[in-house]
């Protein structure tokens, strides 16, 4: 038993959990898509999730974290999300086949048929409302809304966590400074979503579930939502304890757990370990951080041009310059999160550009 809990604790370490999620994401969306789209896969996944959670409830630490009233919605969301990821996948696989065979997609004939809103739509809306209201009532009766000690500005709880839907952003703070993780990235998510219809010029896949016609758009969106948002929320809620240290799902939240901080800036790599300038960091920030600044500028400005000339050439031709460059810049900024995560896990990189004098750390 101890071996299994240790193994699960180990597998939940941020680097491993993130990598495993990415692997599962790739396998589920590409090689095993058709298998995953079967009903039996859905049942297997839902049952395994339920069994995992129920058995884990025997562990007091796990039970305490999962049954915190404000964490219950996340568990609910994970089940809903599993179902609502499977359902479109199932429909997409069916529609992809129909399109390949040159047939109409599901419900295409029905789209030409008109029905009266009363009763067809209004009744289903009414039933939906009743179901939601019932669930809400049962939930409200069985689980009390949390209320802790009265507000006390002097006593900081450890850990202090933002509301659960912002925990993905709080988790990003491990890798990026607040000005990026808390301000630039959220703004970017909103702007990116708003401009999405204007940069996605693919006319296919309008009004039906599909995958093959919109591989790139769907993969990117799903990666952003499932991996960079939901997985980080799960990580931030269930696996981060005091001092924002990592705690496995069965690991007791020990206030005195020590995490070795050995993160190093790029400039320190170059000067301290590279031995340049006699092993000393230059005093002037521009010289100190020059390599990092060049890297970042190169990534943001040369990156799009290089991509447009090489791997994404066909995109540039299809989309035209303005759309293409807007998309690539958003894409590169999105990719900068997993890139920084990997750099942190592999070479303990703290900042690529570190100018704490001006609060400018990347």
């Amino acid at each position: 038993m101890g071996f299994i809990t240790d193994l699960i604790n180990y597998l939940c370490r941020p680097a491993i959990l993130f990598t495993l999620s990415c692997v599962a994401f790739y396998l589920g969306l590409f090689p095993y898509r058709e298998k995953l789209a079967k009903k039996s896969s859905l049942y297997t996944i839902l049952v395994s999730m339920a069994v995992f959670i129920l058995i884990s409830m025997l562990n007091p630490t796990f039970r305490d974290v999962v049954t915190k009233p404000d964490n219950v919605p996340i568990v609910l969301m994970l089940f809903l999300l599993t179902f609502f990821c499977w359902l479109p996948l199932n429909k997409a696989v069916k529609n992809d086949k129909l399109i390949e065979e040159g047939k109409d997609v599901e419900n295409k004939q029905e789209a030409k048929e008109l029905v009266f809103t009363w009763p067809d739509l209004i009744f289903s809306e009414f039933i939906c409302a009743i179901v939601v209201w019932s669930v809400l009532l049962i939930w409200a009766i069985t689980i009390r809304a949390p209320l802790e000690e009265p507000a006390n500005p002097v006593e900081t709880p450890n850990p202090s966590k933002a509301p659960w839907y912002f925990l993905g952003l709080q988790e990003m703070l491990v890798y990026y400074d607040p000005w990026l993780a808390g301000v630039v990235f959220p703004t970017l998510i909103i702007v990116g979503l708003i401009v999405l219809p204007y940069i996605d010029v693919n006319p296919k896949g309008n009004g039906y579930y599909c995958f093959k016609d919109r591989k790139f758009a769907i993969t990117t969106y799903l990666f952003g939502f499932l991996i960079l948002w939901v997985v980080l929320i799960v990580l931030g809620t269930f696996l981060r304890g005091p001092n924002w240290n990592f705690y496995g799902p069965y690991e007791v939240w020990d206030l005195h757990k020590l995490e070795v901080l050995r993160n190093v800036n790029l400039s320190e790599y170059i000067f301290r370990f590279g031995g340049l300038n006699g092993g000393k960091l230059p005093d002037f920030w521009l010289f100190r951080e020059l390599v990092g600044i060049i890297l970042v500028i190169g990534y943001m400005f040369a990156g799009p041009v290089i991509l447009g000339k090489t791997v994404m050439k066909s995109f540039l031709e299809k989309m035209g310059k303005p759309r293409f460059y807007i998309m690539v810049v958003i894409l590169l900024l999105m990719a900068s999160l997993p890139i920084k995560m990997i750099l942190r896990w592999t070479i303990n990189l703290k900042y690529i550009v570190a100018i704490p004098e001006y609060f400018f750390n990347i």
Partner: protein
Amino acid sequence: MAKPTIFETIKESQAWKSIFRHGAPSANARNRVLVVLMNVFLHLHPIRMKKSGVRMSFTWCMGGITFFLFLVETITGVLLMFYYRPTAEYAYYDIIALREHVPIGIMREIHRWGAHSMVISVWLHMFRVFLTGSYKPPREFNWGIGVVLLVLTLLLSFTGYLLPWDQLAIWAITVGSNMARATPFAGNEGPGAALLNSLLGFEAINAGSDARFALLAGRLVGEATLLRFYVLHCIFIPLVASVLMAVHFWRVRKDGGISGPL
């Protein structure tokens, strides 16, 4: 002649006829048109719609559920406002009173779980709209309105999080708003603030004038923050959201109804 049943008597009465000016919708097609057309609430809907758009497996009814939850939040929210005073002195104890002394004291529970559910249902609604490619022309603009509504939902939930005025509330808001301190150019610990100050020649951006200060009405989460968040939560954001929802629903219809295979 048979004696009319009680239902028939009611349906023949002047009062009934003044409210429902048409016959039962089950009777004929004309009445099914009229029932939607004559009712201010139902006429949010079109009279007829694509058969494919009625399917729950296509829409998941997530937009509808989100709207329903917004209504639940509005009604329970108003009931909560009867008992709650947004001051540091009373807020916490009013919340306890809501649970202990108010009959059927689950109003706050419904409100809180409804809020969490609404965040989830908005995400799922957006997820569905994305996966069916429904943001594509001619619905680009409405997708943008939807994104703004998503942000407003999160802000509603965030501002409401502070109101119980317990440890969970103030520290979650403290952590959540700390990041505003790092806003480029507008936060006192953000990149560019020092540059801006030196350009202007005086300390324009400091802890007492930056973005976080504007959000919290102070350097810390305090009583002024509570009032500010209360007003935002109960009045400003719901108002803006209602207007945008009207636009959102209107545009769903004007952009060709629920999407479907063309």
